[in-house]
C-alpha cells in the first residue's frame, strides 16, 4: 500500500510559512507529486512569483529562479528557450499573473511557450495584506475596496482561463478548486496533465486553482473553503477549457 502522507521528493522539508488553512501548501504538494510522478526532479526549473509564494524556492527541492512581480512567464520563456529539454513551470498568484503580469502571461500563452503555469486564484492580494485583486468578486470588501468592489467604478473580475481560451497558442487550460478533497484530487490530475502536455511538447499549459486566503478574507479555514465553493466556483466555472486531442492519457 502506498503511504499517503509521504513527502514527495520534489518538496523540501522546510516548514512552510503559509497561514493556517491556506491552500498554497496543498497546491505545492500537488505540483511536487506531479514532478515526482514523471520523475522530473533533475530537469525541472521552477520560477517563483512575487506574492505569498515568493519563498516557493524554499519548499520545492528543485532548481528555481525568482522573478520580478508578474514577469515569471517571461523568465520561464528565457529558461525554456535555452534549455528546451527541461521542464519549466511558474507558480503565480492572481495579482502577479492577472494584474501586473497580464501582458507576460497573454504573450507566453499566445506564443505557445512550452511551459506550465500554476495559477493561484484567491481573489485577493495575500502578501501585501488583502488589497483588491483583478479576480476580487463584485461586492467583495478588501482593503482597497473598503465599500465592496463597485463594478461601475473599477470594473469586473478577469476570468483568466476564458481569456486565454480566446487565443490559438495555449494547448491546455483547466480550472480546478481546492474546496474539498474530491476537488483536490481533480486538481492533482489537472496539474499532472499540464506537465504531461509540456513533456510531450504540445505547448503552453495552465491550471487555474481556486484557492483560499482565510487571513485576508477574515474567515476561519473552513468558512474560507465554503466561500470558495459557494462564491468563487459559480463565478469561475470549473473544467477543462482546452486540451490537446493527442496527449497520451496519463494514469493519474
Amino acid at each position, binding site marked *: 500500500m502506498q503511504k499517503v502522507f509521504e513527502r514527495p521528493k520534489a518538496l523540501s522539508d522546510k516548514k512552510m510559512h503559509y497561514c493556517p488553512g491556506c491552500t498554497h501548501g496543498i497546491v505545492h504538494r500537488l505540483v511536487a507529486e506531479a514532478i515526482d510522478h514523471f520523475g522530473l526532479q533533475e530537469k525541472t526549473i521552477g520560477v517563483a512569483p*512575487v506574492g505569498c509564494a*515568493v519563498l516557493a524556492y524554499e519548499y520545492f527541492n528543485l532548481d528555481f529562479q*525568482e522573478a*520580478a*512581480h*508578474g514577469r515569471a512567464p517571461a523568465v520561464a520563456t528565457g529558461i525554456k528557450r535555452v534549455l528546451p529539454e527541461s521542464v519549466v513551470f511558474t507558480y503565480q498568484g492572481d*495579482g502577479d499573473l492577472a*494584474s*501586473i503580469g*497580464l501582458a507576460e502571461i497573454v504573450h507566453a500563452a499566445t506564443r505557445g511557450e512550452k511551459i506550465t503555469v500554476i495559477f493561484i486564484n484567491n481573489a485577493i*492580494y495575500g*502578501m*501585501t*495584506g488583502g*488589497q*483588491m485583486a*483583478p479576480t476580487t468578486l463584485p461586492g467583495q470588501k478588501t*482593503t*482597497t*475596496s*473598503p*465599500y465592496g468592489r463597485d463594478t461601475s467604478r*473599477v470594473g469586473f473580475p478577469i476570468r483568466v482561463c476564458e481569456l486565454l481560451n480566446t487565443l490559438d497558442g495555449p494547448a491546455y487550460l483547466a480550472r480546478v478548486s481546492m474546496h474539498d478533497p474530491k476537488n483536490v484530487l481533480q486538481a492533482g490530475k489537472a496539474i499532472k496533465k499540464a506537465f504531461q502536455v509540456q513533456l510531450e511538447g504540445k505547448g503552453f499549459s495552465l491550471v487555474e486553482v481556486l484557492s483560499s486566503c482565510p487571513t485576508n478574507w477574515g474567515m476561519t479555514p473552513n468558512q474560507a473553503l465554503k466561500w470558495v465553493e459557494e462564491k468563487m466556483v459559480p463565478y469561475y466555472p470549473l473544467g477543462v477549457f482546452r486540451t490537446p486531442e493527442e496527449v497520451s492519457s496519463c494514469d493519474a
Partner: protein
Amino acid sequence: MEKIMMKGNEALAEGAIRAGCRFFAGYPITPQNEVPEYMSRRMPEVDGVFLQAESEVSAINMVYGAGGAGCRAMTSSSSPGISLKQEGISYIACAQVPCVIVNVARGGPGLGGLTSSQADYFQATKGGGHGDYRLIVFSPGTVQEMVDLIGLAFDKADEYRNPAMILSDAIMGQMMEPVVLPEMRDLQQINKPWATTGMKNRGQNLINSLGLLPEDLVRINQELQEKYKRIEANEVRYAVEDVDDADLVLVAYGTSSRIARSAMGLARKEGKKVGLLRPITLWPFPKQPLADLAAAGKRFLVVEMSVGQMVEDVILAVNDRSKVDFFGVPNGAVPTVRQVYNRIMEIL
C-alpha cells in the same frame, strides 16, 4: 488647531487630499500600502478618484493623463514599484506635467526587503529614467513634514509644471507622531491654461514629449534646463541645528537625520561641538549652505541608510574646501544612534 497622532503614510495621504489632490492611482506594495488604502476610503468622500491600477507602470501613466488634464494627481509606491514608474516619470518630466510621486523606500536592490532604505537617492535626484531631467525632491523629517511637504510639493509642481517627489522611507511611513492638519484647500484657484480640456475658445493644447526634429529636441531641453536653473535658485530648502559653534556638521535627511540628531545630542553632552544640516529638498540640493559652512572651517560627516549616495553631492558642494567623512549601513540594516555617536567620537 487640534493635534492628532497619525501614521506617516496616512498623514501624507490626508495632506494630499487637503492640498487638493483629487486623483490617485497606485498599486499595492509594502511599506506604502496605507497610502492607497487610505485613499480608497477617503477619495470617494471628496468626489475624487481612487484607482488601483494593474501595475505601477499603468498607475504613473494614469497620473500623466490626469495631471495633463489639469487635476492635482498623485501616485505612491515603494522602491521596486518606483523603478517601474521611471519610464512614465521621464515622459512626464519632458511633457511638463505637474504631479506628485511618493516613494516610501525599502531595501534593495531587486526585490530586496521591507526594511527602511535611503538607497534610492540617486534614482530620485539624478533623474531616474532616461534623459536630462530633474524632479523636485522633498525629504520629510517628521510626520508633520509629511503633511506640510506634500502640500508644498503640489504647489511647486504646479508652479513649475514639473513632477515633484516625496522621498520617504519605511520608518517615516510607519511612524506615528503628532500632526496638525491644514484646512482643506480651495481647488478653484488653480488655473492651468495649458491643460488638455478641449479646444473651447482657444487653440490646441498638447501634452507631449516628442522632439523628432533635432532643433525641436534642443529647444525642449533648453526650456527644461532654464526651468531647472530657476528651481535651483529659488527652491532650496534645508534646516540647520547648532551649526554656528560646530566643528563637525552632520549631514543627513529623513530617518537618518533623526538618528544623527540623537547622536549629536549624545556628543554635545560630552562637550563635542557637533551640528546638523538636514536637506529638506534633495533636489535642488543645498550646495551653497554646505559650501559656506566648509568655507567657515567646518568638517562634515554624512549619515545615510545606504552605502553612500548623498555623500557624493556633499563632496561636490564642499569642493575640497574641507573634509567629508561618511557613515552608512548596507540596506537591511538601520544605523543606531550609538554607531553614529561612535563615528563622531572617532573623528573629533
